[in-house]
C-alpha cells in the first residue's frame, strides 16, 4: 500500500477519465435505489472503518480478497483488477484506476449527501415554516370566521333594529295620521259648534236689537249746540244714482292712479335693466372679438349665422331707438343676442379651461424628460407667480374692505366679486397643490434612478472583477499543467450557462476553486473512499443528473467538506 501512495493522482485521474464516463453511461439504474444508497452511505463511512478494513483483508487471504474485490467491482461495472493477458496477475493500474474512481464516487456521494442533508434541513425548515404558516393561517381563518360570525350577528341585530325602527316609524306615522284626523275632526266639530253658537248669538243680537233700538229710546240722541260746517265748506249732496256713479269713477281713478304709478316704476326699472343688459352685451362683444367668428364658422348648429344676422339687425335697431321700443321683438332680440354672447363667453372660458388642463396633463406626461433644472426653474417661477397672486388678492381684499366700509349701495355685486376672487384663489391653491405633488413625484423618480445607477455600477464592478479573475485564471491554466486546465474548463462552462444572479456566487466559488480542486486529498482519505466505492457506485449518475442551478451550491458544499 505504501507503494500506491507514490503514484500521482493527477495522472491517474486523467487516465481513468474515459472508463469512468463509460460506467456512468452504462449504469442508469432507477434513481430511487440510488437515493437510498446515497442516504444510507454516510453512516458506516465515518465510523469503525479501520477495524472493518483490517478484518477484511489479512496476510493470508490477500488473494481471496483481491478476487472478491475483483468480482465485486466487475459486477459494479469496473474493469477487472487482473490484467487481461495473463491470468491471476494483479493489474496495478486498473486497481488504482478503480480506487480513484471509487474515491471520486465517494466524494461525489459525500457531496450529494451533504446536498441532500442541506436540502433535507431546508425542507425541514421549510416544512416548519409552512406548518407555522399553516397554523397561523388556520388561526387567522378561525379569527376571521369568528369575526364573520360576529359581523353576521351584528348585521342581524342591526336588521332587527332597523325593522324595529321601521315599525316605530310606521307607528309614528300612523299616530301622526291619527292625530291629524283628530285635529281635523276637532276642527270641524269646533267650527260646527261655533256656527251653532254664533247662530244663537245672532238670534240674541237680533232680539236685543229689536228690543233696544225699536222702542224709540229717548236717550239715544245727539245733543249739539249747533251744527258745524263741513270741512270743504260745501253742503252735503243728496244721494242719487249720480253720486254712486261718481263714486265708482273716483274709485277707479284711484286704482288707475296706483297702477299707473306702478307701471311708471316698472318702466324705469325695466329701462335700467335694459341699459345694464346692453352694456353687458357691449362689453362681451368687445371682450370676445376673435371668438365671435369661430362659432359662426363652426356652424355645428345651423342657426348660428341666422342668429348673428338677427343680432346685427338688433344692433342696428338698438342704435336707433332701443329705449323707446319695448316691444316683444326687440326684447327677444336683445335676450337672444345676450344669450348667444353668453354662450360664446362660456365656450371661450371652457376652452381656456381645457387648454389649461391639457397643458397641465402635457406637463405631466412630459415629466420624464424634463430635467431637474428646468423643473426647479419652473417651480420657482410658479412660486413667484403664486406669491404675486396672493399679494394681488390681498390688495384686492383690502380694497374691497375699504369699499365695503364706505357706505355702499350695491351689496350683491360686491358679494359676487368677492365670490369670484375667492374662487380664483381656491383654484390657484389647487393648482399649487397639484404642482407640489408633481414635484414630489419627480423627486421620487430621481431617487430611484440614482439607486438603480448605483446598483448597476456595483454590478458592473463585480462583473469586471469577475472577468479579470477569470482571465487570470484562464491565463494561469493555460500556462500550468493539463489537469488543472480541464477542471477550470468545466468550471467556466458552468459560469457560461449560469444566470447573472449567480454571477457573484460563481465568482466566489471560482476564486476558491483553484487551490481546492487540484489539492489532492491525503492518502488516508483516499483509502477510505476507495473502500466505499461499492456502496456509492450509482451516485455518480445522481450527480450528473442534478440540475444546473444547484451546481454552485454543490461546489460550496464540497468546499465545506474539504475544509472540514
Amino acid at each position, binding site marked *: 500500500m505504501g507503494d500506491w501512495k507514490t503514484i500521482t493522482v493527477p495522472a491517474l485521474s486523467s487516465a481513468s477519465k474515459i472508463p469512468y464516463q463509460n460506467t456512468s453511461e452504462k449504469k442508469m439504474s432507477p434513481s430511487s435505489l440510488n437515493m437510498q444508497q446515497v442516504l444510507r452511505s454516510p453512516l458506516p463511512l465515518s465510523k469503525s472503518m479501520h477495524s472493518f478494513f483490517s478484518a477484511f483483508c489479512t496476510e493470508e487471504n490477500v488473494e481471496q480478497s483481491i478476487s472478491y474485490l475483483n468480482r465485486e467491482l466487475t459486477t459494479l461495472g469496473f474493469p477487472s483488477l487482473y490484467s487481461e493477458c495473463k491470468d491471476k496477475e494483479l493489474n496495478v493500474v486498473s486497481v488504482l484506476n478503480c480506487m480513484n474512481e471509487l474515491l471520486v464516487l465517494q466524494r461525489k456521494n459525500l457531496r450529494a449527501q451533504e446536498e441532500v442533508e442541506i436540502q433535507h434541513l431546508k425542507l425541514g425548515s421549510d416544512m416548519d415554516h409552512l406548518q407555522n404558516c399553516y397554523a397561523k393561517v388556520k388561526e387567522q381563518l378561525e379569527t376571521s370566521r369568528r369575526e364573520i360570525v360576529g359581523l353576521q350577528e351584528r348585521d342581524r341585530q342591526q336588521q332587527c333594529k332597523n325593522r324595529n325602527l321601521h315599525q316605530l316609524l310606521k307607528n309614528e306615522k300612523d299616530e301622526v295620521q291619527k292625530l291629524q284626523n283628530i285635529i281635523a275632526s276637532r276642527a270641524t266639530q269646533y267650527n260646527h259648534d261655533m256656527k251653532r253658537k254664533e247662530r244663537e248669538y245672532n238670534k240674541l243680537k237680533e232680539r*236685543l236689537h229689536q228690543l*233696544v233700538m225699536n222702542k224709540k229710546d229717548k236717550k239715544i240722541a245727539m245733543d*249739539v249746540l249747533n251744527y258745524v*260746517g263741513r270741512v270743504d265748506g260745501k253742503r252735503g*249732496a243728496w244721494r242719487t244714482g249720480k*253720486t254712486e256713479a261718481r263714486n265708482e269713477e273716483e274709485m277707479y281713478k*284711484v*286704482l288707475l292712479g296706483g297702477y299707473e304709478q306702478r307701471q311708471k316704476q316698472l318702466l324705469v326699472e325695466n329701462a335700467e335693466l335694459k341699459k345694464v343688459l346692453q352694456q353687458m352685451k357691449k362689453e362681451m362683444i368687445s371682450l370676445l372679438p376673435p371668438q365671435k367668428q369661430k362659432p359662426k364658422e363652426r356652424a355645428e348648429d345651423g342657426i348660428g349665422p341666422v342668429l348673428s344676422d338677427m343680432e346685427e339687425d338688433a344692433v342696428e335697431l338698438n342704435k336707433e331707438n332701443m329705449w323707446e321700443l319695448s316691444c316683444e321683438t326687440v326684447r327677444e332680440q336683445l335676450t337672444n343676442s345676450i344669450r348667444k354672447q353668453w354662450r360664446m363667453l362660456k365656450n371661450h372660458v371652457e376652452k381656456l379651461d381645457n387648454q389649461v388642463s391639457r397643458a397641465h396633463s402635457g406637463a405631466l406626461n412630459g415629466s420624464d424628460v424634463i430635467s431637474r433644472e428646468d423643473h426647479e426653474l419652473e417651480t420657482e417661477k410658479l412660486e413667484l407667480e403664486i406669491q404675486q397672486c396672493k399679494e394681488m388678492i390681498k390688495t384686492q381684499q383690502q380694497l374691497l374692505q375699504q369699499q365695503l366700509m364706505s357706505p355702499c349701495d350695491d351689496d350683491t355685486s360686491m358679494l359676487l366679486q368677492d365670490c369670484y376672487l375667492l374662487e380664483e384663489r381656491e383654484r390657484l391653491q389647487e393648482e399649487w397643490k397639484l404642482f407640489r405633488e408633481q414635484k414630489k413625484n419627480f423627486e421620487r423618480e430621481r431617487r430611484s434612478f440614482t439607486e438603480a445607477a448605483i446598483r448597476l455600477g456595483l454590478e458592473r464592478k463585480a462583473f469586471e472583477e469577475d472577468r479579470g479573475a477569470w482571465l487570470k485564471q484562464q491565463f494561469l491554466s493555460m500556462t500550468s499543467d493539463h489537469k488543472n486546465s480541464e477542471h477550470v474548463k468545466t468550471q467556466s462552462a458552468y459560469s457560461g450557462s449560469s444566470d447573472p444572479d449567480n454571477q457573484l456566487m460563481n465568482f466566489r466559488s471560482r476564486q476558491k476553486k483553484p487551490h481546492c480542486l487540484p489539492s489532492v486529498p491525503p492518502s488516508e482519505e483516499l483509502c477510505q473512499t476507495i473502500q466505499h466505492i461499492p456502496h456509492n457506485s450509482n451516485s455518480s449518475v445522481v450527480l450528473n443528473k442534478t440540475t444546473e442551478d444547484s451546481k454552485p451550491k454543490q461546489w460550496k458544499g464540497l468546499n465545506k467538506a474539504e475544509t472540514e
Partner: protein
Amino acid sequence: MNFSEVFKLSSLLCKFSPDGRYLASCVQYRLIVRDVNNLQILQLYTCLDQIQYIEWSSDSLFILCAMYKRGIVQVWSLEQPDWHCKIDEGSAGLVASCWSPDGRHILNTTEFYLRITVWSLCTKSVSYIKYPKACQHGIAFTKDGRYMALAERRDCKDFISLFVCSDWQLLRHFDTETQDLSGIEWAPNGCVLAVWDTCLEYKILLYSLDGRLLSTYSAYEWSLGIKSVAWSPSSQFLAIGSYDEKVRILNHVTWKKITEFEHPATIANPKIIVYKEMEKSPRVETESLAFPPARAQASALFSTQSKYDISQVPVSLQYIKPVADRANPRIGIGMLAFSPDNCFLATKNDNIPNAIWIWDVQKLKLFVVLEQLYAVQLFQWDPRQPRLAICTGNSKVYLWSPAGCVSVQVPMEGDFQVLSLCWHSSGDSMALLTKDNFCMCYLEREEVK
C-alpha cells in the same frame, strides 16, 4: 335732551293734535289742552264722567272724549270753547268710538257689536251700519280718508264692506274666504286691503279697492298663525309677524314671500351688532340690587344709570318659555313697525320680551339687536327719520338710530315709570307717559346727526 316738568295724567290719555300745535291730556273727567310750545293750558273741558278715550279730529278742531261706561261721547271744539256736543247711545251701550277721516262724523260701536252709528256734526242725519264684526281691527280708513273698510259678520260668514267716507255710500260688499276674520288694514297707498284670519289659521288675503282678490298667502297649517301685520310706508312690503317667532315679508308685485326673519334666542352672526343695556350704579350697586322692593327710594337716592355695551357674539338673549296650555301664549311677533323712510323694520318677539330686533330692509338682513334690562313696553319710530324710541317701564327712555343708541334717565323726582310714549309729528319732541304723570322730552336737532 331736555325735559319738561311733570303733569298729571290718567289712563295714559295724552295725544298731540294732528297739526302738532296742541297737546290734549286727561285727568279723571277733565280734558286739558295745552300749547305744545310752552305747555300753557289753552282750554280745560269738564266731561260728565271719567274719560276713557280721546281722539283728535283730523283738522285738529275737535276732540272727542268717550265714556264707555256711561255710553256717552262728548265732543269739544277748540275754536269755540262754549260749543258742546254730547252723544248718548242710551241702553245700546258703547264699546268704541272714532272720528271719520273728515272730522265731521263720529262712528260709535254699540255694545255686543249690534251696529255702528255714524253721527254727523254737520247735519242731523244718523246712519247705521249693521252686523259689524267684533274684532280688534274691524274698521280701517285709507290714508287719504276717502274710503273705509269694515269687517262684517253675517250668517257665520265674513264680509268686507267698502264705504265712501264722503257720503257713507256702500261702494263694495264682498265675502272673504276666512274662517274668522280678525283684522283688516289698508296699504298706505289705499289700493290694497290686507285681511287676515284668526290666529288659529295662518291666512292673509289681499283685496284690491274694487273688491278683487289679489292674492292669498298661507305659510303653514295646524299651528297658531298671524299675530301682527304691518305695511311698509311705501306699500311695497307687507310684514307679517306670527306665532312661530318669524316675520315674513311679502312683496307688492307678486304678493309672494321675499324673505323670512327668524328671531332665535342666540345670535351668532358676527356682522350683527348687539347692544346690551348694562346697569352701572354709581356707588352701592350691591345694595341697590339687593333690595328691589325699595326701588323707588333707591332711584330717588342714587339714580341707577345704565348704558349700552356692544356684546360680543354669540349672544344668548333672555328667553321666556311660554305656557303652552294657555290661550294667547306669550310667544311670537307681537309688535312690528317700519321706519318712516322704509329702511328699517323693528320687531319684538313676545317670548324674548327684553329684546328688539331691527332689520335692514334694503339688505333684508338683521342689523341690530337691542337687549334691554326690562321687558319692552312700547317702541315707536320717529315720524321724520329712522330713530326708534323705546320704553321699558322704568325711568329711562331709549333711543336708537343707525348711528348708535343711548339710554336717557328721565330726571324726575320719585318713580317715573315710562309705560308709553308718543312722538310729536315734527320728531323734535315726545311725550313720556307713566301711570299718572307725563312729561315732554325735547330732542335737540344737533343730537340727531
